[in-house]
């Protein structure tokens, strides 16, 4: 079962990567979350036909990727996984936006520009979010979200989902393998598939009951408390936030790509 296997592996990979010890990993999760949200905000705030102004923004995910020592293929593979959904949205732009613009002497439909802009924005924001996840970890991100005022109900659901998704996948995989071993090469029928799903549902219910019992045994009364930590942001955290946010602001208001192009053109001539 390649899909379940790879899903398990990918989930584990994210957890493994988040246990890194680089200075990016050691930054307070709030710092990375806030800076990434600001980054996404600035990227998303560009006009629909902006392309050159977006390109310098690549410096943020590239910087994090390099300094957190994360594998490039981790980001690329996941971007490819999500790309079809974005492509599906963007692909209609050239058909809808039929006005033409002239770029470098070539006449081009405006839709092509907006489509490219959407794709660039997707690459920038999704890669930043993926790097944030891989250099921080879901539990720490949930804590940071809580500290930013996101309701505990939401973050708890996310945490439990993350915790038990692995367990569910492992169980699903073992049920599927057990069936596969006795199918002797025959295709999985609808009836067998339905039985597998029913098995998984029953197991999930039983496990949920056992988890609840274990919680009750430790005096659970409806609230899931977590210890409050009063960790303050360090100078490094503040430098990271201020430095990057200033750069985003600068890149938002000055088209660095055009300036750089003009500079190179001047040097060349």
């Amino acid at each position, binding site marked *: 079962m390649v899909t379940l296997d790879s899903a398990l592996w990918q989930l*584990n990979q994210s*957890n*493994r990567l988040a*246990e890194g010890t680089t200075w990016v990993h050691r930054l307070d999760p709030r710092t990375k979350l806030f800076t990434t949200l600001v980054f996404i905000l600035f990227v998303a705030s560009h006009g629909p036909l902006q392309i050159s102004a977006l390109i310098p923004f690549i410096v943020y995910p590239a910087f994090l990727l390099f300094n957190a020592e994360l594998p490039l293929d981790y980001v690329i593979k996941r971007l490819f996984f999500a790309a079809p959904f974005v492509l599906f949205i963007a692909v209609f732009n050239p058909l809808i936006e039929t006005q033409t613009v002239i770029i470098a002497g070539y006449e081009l439909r405006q839709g092509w520009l907006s489509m490219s802009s959407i794709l660039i924005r997707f690459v920038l924001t999704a890669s930043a979010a993926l790097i944030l996840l891989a250099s921080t*970890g*879901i*539990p*720490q991100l*949930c*804590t940071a979200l809580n500290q930013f005022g996101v309701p505990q109900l939401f973050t708890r659901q996310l*945490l*439990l989902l*993350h*915790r*038990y998704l*692995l*367990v569910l996948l492992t169980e699903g995989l073992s049920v599927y393998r057990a069936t596969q071993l006795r199918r002797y090469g025959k295709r999985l029928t609808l009836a067998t598939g339905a039985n597998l799903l029913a098995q998984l549902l029953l197991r999930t219910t039983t*496990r949920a009951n*056992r*988890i609840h*019992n*274990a*919680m*009750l*045994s*430790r*005096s*659970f*009364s409806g*609230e*899931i*408390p*977590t*210890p*409050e*930590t009063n960790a303050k942001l360090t100078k490094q955290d503040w430098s990271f936030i201020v430095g990057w946010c200033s750069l985003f602001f600068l890149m938002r208001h000055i088209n660095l790509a055009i300036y750089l192009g003009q500079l190179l053109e001047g040097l060349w001539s």
Partner: protein
Amino acid sequence: MLTVDIDNISYTYADGTSALDAVSLQVNAGESVAIIGANGAGKSTLLHHLNGLLTPTAGRIHICTHPLNNKTLAEIRRLIGMVFQNPDDQLFMANAIDDVCFGPLNLGLTSQQALKVARRALDQVGVLNLQDRAPCRLSDGEKRRVAIAGVLATSPEILVLDEPTSGLDPWARRQLIDLLKKLDHTRLIATHDFDLAHDLCERTIVLCEGKIIADGLTANILTNDFLDSSPAIPANTL
């Protein structure tokens, strides 16, 4: 001093299966008792009665002189620390330290106090270095230790362990037995592991089809003569 007093309890599941039949059992403070029996003998059902996860259809239970009822349930759950068979059922928080803090925080400790007792408990079971690790990134042996720490952090009087060594490799199993030896709580351990029963428990109870069929010194119970001669224990049930 009597810490566990089970008087003639019976339990029948909703589908009509009788799981416990007139079970009586007294355990003194500091005693370590192994509960052995075949699958389905009623070991886990019996343990689940101790902290009120199941309510007996007949009979009474006293834990440290408190009668088990809705009014005393919170106190009894503080007195009894239960380690479940599958640590994945128990470790549901994002990381080990948060999980171990879960019990103390529920008992009303402040964050600082909870963190302090949690770190002490993790240190006691030798996994303090794993405090920030997500449960899914722990080995089975490590999970088991963190689960025990989660219970120790609530300072229970009685430790109840449901098949603590199941699924562990021999090395992790030996480590766990050595760890449990160091704990001086009153212990009730449901197990199929005779070595564990022999090493940790001076007293053993044999359950068969929801009834106690033997109760005595482990050294006497775990002999071939006893196991072979007991008509209520088919040779393949243990």
